[in-house]
């Protein structure tokens, strides 16, 4: 440790550029977003700031009376509630397979399973749009081989969100797979040996050793995934534009349209803050549940 005045200045000097960037381009905008959400900032205010009026909590109250906001929130909750378990389930299954003693070509399989994670969402969403095309998509063609008639995947309000959920699970499961795999590798082998001597079946070993030992890692993974999935945007933007019948409008998609299409920046800021609160509530709830089970 350096002592004295020069040292302190050095510390600040080294931290300053990054801190300045974070302050100017993140900290201040977040504070400004809160202020903005309490005003009627719109196209007129964008042209001339003198048109700006404070409106208190009106934006929030009005949002709570807007059916499309509730629809967007409902769609997003649907995406999170179905997408997170599906994604993590896939991740866990893949991690268990890779961890199994019987697995061959591990590095090769791991790389293949992880590949979708590093791809560009927009590009692979475009691919999926064609794969799930009603009349010439490969998926419907394959289903046709087993006698299932074509499904209008992205054009039917019942199927559009499930298709996006499937897409997200495909795109993201590799990420958590790697984290869970590291978690599996950290479980002491002796625990399994002891269980085998006691004659515990594989399923019981999984239930009574693997899952509890993996608990803390699963909790971290769940928190990261839930907060990430609430930020659904690019998928509906590219695959459905929020349609059919607004069945894939997510909260962020709604915010984007409100803010950058209609220029209701005050209202859009309120949407952003409500989403933040929802994410905070959901992740806090998860952590509480985890704590009660003694995972943290």
């Amino acid at each position: 440790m350096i002592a004295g005045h020069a040292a302190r200045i050095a510390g600040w000097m080294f931290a300053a550029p990054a801190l300045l960037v974070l302050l100017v381009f993140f900290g201040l905008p977040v504070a400004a977003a809160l202020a903005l959400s309490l005003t009627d900032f719109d196209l007129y205010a964008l042209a001339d700031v003198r048109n700006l009026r404070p409106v208190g909590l009106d934006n929030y109250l009005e949002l709570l009376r807007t059916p499309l906001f509730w629809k967007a929130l409902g769609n997003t909750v649907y995406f999170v509630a179905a997408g997170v378990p599906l994604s993590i389930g896939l991740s866990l299954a893949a991690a268990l397979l890779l961890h199994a003693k019987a697995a061959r070509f591990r590095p090769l399989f791991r790389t293949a399973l992880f590949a979708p994670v590093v791809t560009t969402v927009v590009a692979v969403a475009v691919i999926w749009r064609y794969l799930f095309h009603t009349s010439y998509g490969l998926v419907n063609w394959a289903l046709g081989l087993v006698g299932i008639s074509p499904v209008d995947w992205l054009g039917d309000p019942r199927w559009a969100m499930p298709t996006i959920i499937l897409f997200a699970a495909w795109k993201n499961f590799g990420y958590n797979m790697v984290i869970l795999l590291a978690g599996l590798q950290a479980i002491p082998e002796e625990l399994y040996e002891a269980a085998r001597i006691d004659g515990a079946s594989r399923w019981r070993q999984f239930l009574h050793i693997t899952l509890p030992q993996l608990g803390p890692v699963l909790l971290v993974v769940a928190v990261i995934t839930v907060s990430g999935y609430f930020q659904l945007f690019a998928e509906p933007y590219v695959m459905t534009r929020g349609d059919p019948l607004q069945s894939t409008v997510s909260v962020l998609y709604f915010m984007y349209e409100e803010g950058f299409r209609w220029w209701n920046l005050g209202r859009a800021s309120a949407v952003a803050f409500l989403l933040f609160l929802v994410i905070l509530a959901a992740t806090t709830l998860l952590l509480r549940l985890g704590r009660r089970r003694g995972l943290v």
Partner: protein
Amino acid sequence: MSGARGAGQGRLQVLLVNGALLVLASASLAPLLWMLSVSFMPMGEASRFPPPLLPESPTLDNYRELFMRTDAARSFANSLGVSLAVTLLSLLFNAMAGYAFAKLRFPGRDGLFRLLLAALVVPAQVAMLPLFLLMKQLGLVNTYAGVVLPALASVFGIFLVRQYARSIPDELLEAARIDGAGELRIFFQIVLPLLRPVLVTLAVFTFLAAWNDFMWPLIVLTGQEHYTLPVSLAALSREHIMDVELMMAGAVVTVVPVLLLFLLLQRYYIQGLLLGSVKG
């Protein structure tokens, strides 16, 4: 368990486990392979029924069309330039800050670091609306700087470097100071070389994130000439919706660079992912 039965079970297990892995891996790669295949098909071939898996007579027409008739070349250069600028500059800023938080004592350091970690719970999108207004004030809407500036530092990057830098022995830095080396020289000549592994990790992470980023570039870049590849591809897919083969060529151009980078530096990327997930 008798020996023969055990061996039989073992073989069955190898078959089941690897079979399942093969199915999963195929499902992961199939869409990407299909993209590659269709990008070489002549126009209209992919819309036939039944859909062909491989091009009958492979052609580069789609790539030619993509680069001659659309702005793809421009977008590719934009993406590359923006991602490289973000990676190089943020690497320097995050390394300096991470080192300071790990090894230099300054007033308010620990409180500040806790504040940074707490800021991780705020989704980036909350900042985007005022950020747009700020960029408009600064005259940076529809400029490369508008995309690059907000990405010049990240809490994740600072955190990653700090975790790694804590293992640098204080005696080493102290000895350099006694020898009369200035703080800048210590940082560039002693600390940076020691941080090399974590910097490679962070560089891969940052480059991939910058290349794949969509929402902020979509907001701040309003003119085609500045579009990055994802923004350009999203716009293209609206215009050329029926042109499957052309779109797949566009997807290949967007995805292949990051896939190659990942394949080359996979080890570093996975390390960063594991370190980063500790942050919770």
